[in-house]
Every structure is written in C-alpha cells, then in structure tokens.
C-alpha cells in the first residue's frame, strides 16, 4: 500500500466491496472516482482527433466487448474480434472520432479491474446517481458500452435469442424464396 494514504486505502476498499456485492456501498465521505463529474458538455470529446488506440487500450476495450458476449450468453454466436475491430477502427479513424472517449473508456476499465470492480458493474445502469450522464461512468456507458452492446447484438448476438435475422444485420436477399433469411408465414424453421 506504499504511496496510498489511509483515505485512498479506505476508498479502494469501499470500491471493491461495492463491486463484489454488486450494489452501491460507497461511503458517502469518499468520492467514487468512476462517478466523478467530467467538466464540459455531454458531446463527444475531441471529435476531430482521429488515430489508433494503443495496444493496451485496445485490449481493455476488447475485454469489455468479449464480456458483453459472456454476460448475455452470446459468445457462441460468432461475434468476436473481427466485429470489434470493424466498429472501433471505424469510430477512431473517421470523424466524428471516438478516440478520446475510447481512451478514457480503456483507462476506466483498467482502473476498475485493478480495483476488483467487475465489468458487470460498469455495464449496470445507475439510476441512483443524480446527473449520471455527466460522470465518467455515464459517459463510458453512453459512448462505449451501450454502443458495444448494440453492435454485438446486431452483428450476430441476436441469434442467441431466437432470431434468424435482425435489424442491422443483413441476413441475405429475400429474392431467393428457397433460402429466405427469415421465417416466412407457415414456416417453423428454428
């Protein structure tokens, strides 16, 4: 614990406890760093700054993307790093760029996991927090995790829930009636 004062130790303990218990248990006298308010408006930060994520940053985000598949039991649907890269490369390489939001998101994931906060805790909605949207976690959920969930579902995760096709996927043409990408009337395909 060298380098940490007593206040920081207590804060870390509380953070860990809250995450493990899966509920808010942060002592009121300590600031939850994940819920710190980010100055400025809610718009995308530095949208003109394009570029590539560092390897570690990319790994943190891929960890989250994979966890989304695990958490909602979509891991066997074939969605993985290729789909992740498709989205992340596009959103960091083209304006409006998510590069800054993704870097912050990767840092938040690293910080949370270092403090034994589960990824589930980062994904959980926090209706108990006032002005959640302006916090670090709120921004993370808006620009990173919620969009990752949407992309995971669209690119194939929907199959886990019994769909053959889904809005945004593109299962194939409807013109070949022998191989429709969806269940037609009177058909009981599974």
């Amino acid at each position, binding site marked *: 614990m060298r380098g940490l004062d007593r206040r920081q130790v207590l804060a870390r303990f509380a953070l860990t406890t809250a995450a493990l218990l899966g509920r808010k248990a942060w002592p009121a006298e300590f600031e939850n760093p994940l819920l710190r308010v980010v100055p400025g408006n809610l718009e995308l930060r530095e949208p003109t700054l394009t570029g590539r994520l560092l390897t570690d940053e990319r790994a943190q985000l891929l960890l989250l993307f994979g966890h*989304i598949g695990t*958490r*909602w*039991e*979509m891991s066997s649907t074939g969605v993985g790093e290729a789909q992740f890269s498709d*989205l992340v490369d*596009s*959103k960091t390489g*083209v304006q409006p760029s998510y590069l800054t939001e993704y870097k912050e998101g990767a840092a938040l994931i690293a910080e949370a996991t270092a403090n034994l906060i589960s990824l589930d805790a980062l*994904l*959980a*909605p926090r209706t108990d927090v006032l002005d959640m949207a302006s916090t670090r976690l709120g921004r993370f*959920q808006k620009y990173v*995790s*919620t*969009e990752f*969930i*949407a*992309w*995971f*579902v*669209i690119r194939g*995760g*929907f199959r*886990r*829930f*019994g*769909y*053959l*096709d*889904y*809005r*945004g*996927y*593109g*299962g*194939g*043409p*409807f*013109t070949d*009636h022998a191989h*429709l*990408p*969806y*269940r*037609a*009337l*009177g*058909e009981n395909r599974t």
Partner: protein
Amino acid sequence: MKSRRVIIVGSGVAGALVSERLLAKDGSVSILMLEAGPHIVMRNRRMWQDMVTAGADPYKAHQDSDSDAGDIVQTVTMQGARLFGRGGTTAHWYGYSFRFKPEDFHLRANTGREIDWPFGYETLEPYYHQAELAMGVAGDSVADDPPRKGKPYPFAAPPFVAADGPVVAAFEARGISYGHLPIARSGNCVTTGTCVYCPVGGKYSADLTLDELESGRGFELRVNAPVLRVLLNNKRSIAGVEYMDMATRTRHRELADEVVICAGAFETPKLLLASAEANWTEGLGNATGHVGRHPKVHDILFANGVLPRNPQRLRHELDIPTLCTRHWDTPKEQRDGKFFFISTNLKDYPAPLSQMMAGGTSAAELDAMGEGPLSFSFFGHRECFSFDGDFVKLASGTNRFGLPKMEVRYTTSEATRTAAAECLTRMRDVFRTMGAGDIRSEIIEPIGTYHFAGTTRMSKRAADGVVDENLTVHEIENLHLCSNAVFPTVSAVNPTLTLAALALRLGDHLAS
C-alpha cells in the same frame, strides 16, 4: 443539330427520372439540374454505424423544421417530411410503391369531389410498369387490382413473415382482402432492415439514378443552388431561371429551351408565385388563381394491439413490412375517403434487445420475456380532400437552403375526423378478432406532410388548374411541372410510384 437545353429544378425522384428518360430518348438534349440543398452522403458505413449503434440521424442536416419553413398552421407539420439535397426525399423514404386504382382518376365523376385527372389509369398504366422497373419494385405480379396487364414486377414480393400469421388469420375471419406490400427493394437488398439509410443501395433512391446520369454525357447537377425565380421571354414563353450560389452568395442566370420544376408540392407553387412579373402579376400560371390552392395530404392513422402470449416465439426478423390491405381502397369508399393500412413494427420485446440489455435486463430475463406479450401495429393512410381557403403562400424571409419561407393553411374538419375515426374502428376490429388486448389507436396530429399534394393541380382547362395533361403550365409553352403538386387527387396510397410514372411520361413527352 442544335442542342436543346433543359433546366430541371430539384433533384428528387421526379427530376431524376424525367432526366433519365429525356436523355435516353433525345441525343440532342443537355440538362442542367439545380438542387437547393447540399450533397447527401449515402451508403456511408460510418454514418450507418452511428445510426445503428447510437441512433444518429444521417439526414439531420437535410431536414427542415416548421420554424425553418415559415408560418405553418398547427394542423400539419413539416418536421421530418422533406429532405433537401441531392436525391431529395427518396433518400429516406420507405419505398412503398403502390399504383393508384382506375377509379382514383375519376373522383369528380364518381363523387362530385375535387376534379378528375385529365386522363385515366389506362394512360398511365404503361408508365407504372416502367416506373416499377426503374425503381426495382418487388411485388405480387399475380395480384391484378389494380390491373397489371400481365406485366410482372421486376422482383417477387418478399413472402409474408411468420409474424404476419395472426393478422392474416384475422383478415380472413373478417373477410378482409389483403396482399403483399409492393416495395422498392432491388436484388441488391440484403434485408438489413435499416432501410431509412440503406448501407448497400438495396432500396431505390433517386441518388442512384443521379449517379448514372452524372457519369454519362449531357447532364450536370449543381447543388446548393436554390432557384429564386423563372425568367420569361414573353407571357407564353420562359427564358430560363435565376438561382443563388449558396457558397458565394451570388445570383446567376441560366437560359434554357425548357424548364421543368420538380420541386415538390411546397416549393413548386412558391417558385411560380415568386416569379410574378408584369405579364403574370399573381405568379406564373396563376391567372385563374389555382397556384398554391387545393392542398391535400393523407390522414395518418395508427393502431396498436397486444397478444398476451407468444408461444411460437415469433420474432421481428425482417424489418421490412410485407402485409397490407387495400380492402377499403375501393370505389365504394371514394366519397368519404379511401383507406388502406399496412401491418408493421412488430414488437417482440418492449424495446430492442440492446436497449433492454443496457437497461439491466439479463439473458435469463430476456428468455422469459421471449414468450411474453407480442405487440402489433397498423399504420394507415386515409384519402383527404382539399378545402376552399387552404393554401401555400410565400412569406417573408428565407430558410437556410436559400428558399423563401412560406405560409401554409390546412383545414381538418369534424367530418374528416369522423371519417378517420371510422378507419380507426376498422383497425381496432382486426385487433379484437386477433384476440389482442391493450388496443390503442390514434389519428396522428399534427399531420406529417410526407404526401402533400395538389397545389399546382393538373386540369384539362386552364380555368380549373395550373398544368395540362402533359404537365405543361397552361398558357406557358415551355414550362413544365412534375411533382405531387400536379395531382388532382391523392387516393389513399403512397404517391411516389405515381409521381415516378408521371415523370417518365413527361420525359417521353419532352423527347417527342
């Protein structure tokens, strides 16, 4: 041979198809197309990703609002209806491609309402087929109401989805006729379901035609170029147009042998009114006072019903509607306003899966909900008629596209509401037959101006309208109009295929 120069005002589906046909049939023609709005970026993967992951609107910069448009009466709204830019409103349309029926061309003769079209269905029928080919419409070629004369659609209709089953059963139990919804989805469609911004060009939009035109000879398109007025040689002949280059804020004049205004049912009458001069003091073609009058738009009706259980786990797999009924789109219904509706927007979960997940719903909870309530929606249009005293007029000031603002008045009467309420009852009755609960229905107000029409209507006589049967302005030999504005009546169904057919017919006429 002297080159014939034609100016087309507006780059939507009408302008694109007039241009395509004219260039194909007359090698001496050169076309300058002037579009008020900017370039619209289509089929951009990043914009598509932002739409599906973050709900971003790819067309935000191209829409106008009520305040942007001018002084709009509260019964209608401009919000979300029009798109300004290359390709126009078909960029975000859904592609429903219905033909009008034969009786729609004879409303006056059949009911005493409005005026008749100067020609009948038979005249437009060949062009309907050509429009279906041009736009890649998928439909049921066997269905023969309205008559198809044995001409098949270019693509077979998507088969009904499994989830249409309960609705089909209710239609059959009630003796309601139904059919496939004809839709402009070509062989490129891969059922992405994000049709409002198709990532692959599987939905027809006018920019596809413009792409071909711009890669060929004799065609030039200028964007950010709102036309301010039409210039005349004399009372019966126009010389060209004056437009604004929005980039430099400078005015320019372009001369032409023919001008075709394809600018929709708001901008077309406005441009005629803005072009008033000594020979036409009330606006071009407005000697008999019909420019900007007779506006009509469909009532938009919505109903929703919920089946309590979904044991078959029916899923919203195809985000393209397939089922519709034109059961009330018949001569019998003409007097009070024809009506049709589609079955759309099935909800197997209260919200899309990703929203449910982000909101904290677990996989197990989603599984449990998977056999839960199944929500169906019907979306319909009812034919409406114009009221004396309603209008589109010029107002002071300009909008951000450099076009004059406008004043719009549109009346909805008690009789209209009563007729619309009857249509809602019809939709609710289907839900009752399905065994649905939580049945809700409403007339969407203010009315969206998606199908606004009639403001420079077609007529045999100059005394009754603005353009003749060839879409030439009465008494001005080389000025033509092609938009929903020329429709004398609007039927109950979406107007775009009829507009496309008129555009191809006008292209033939100009070439001849």
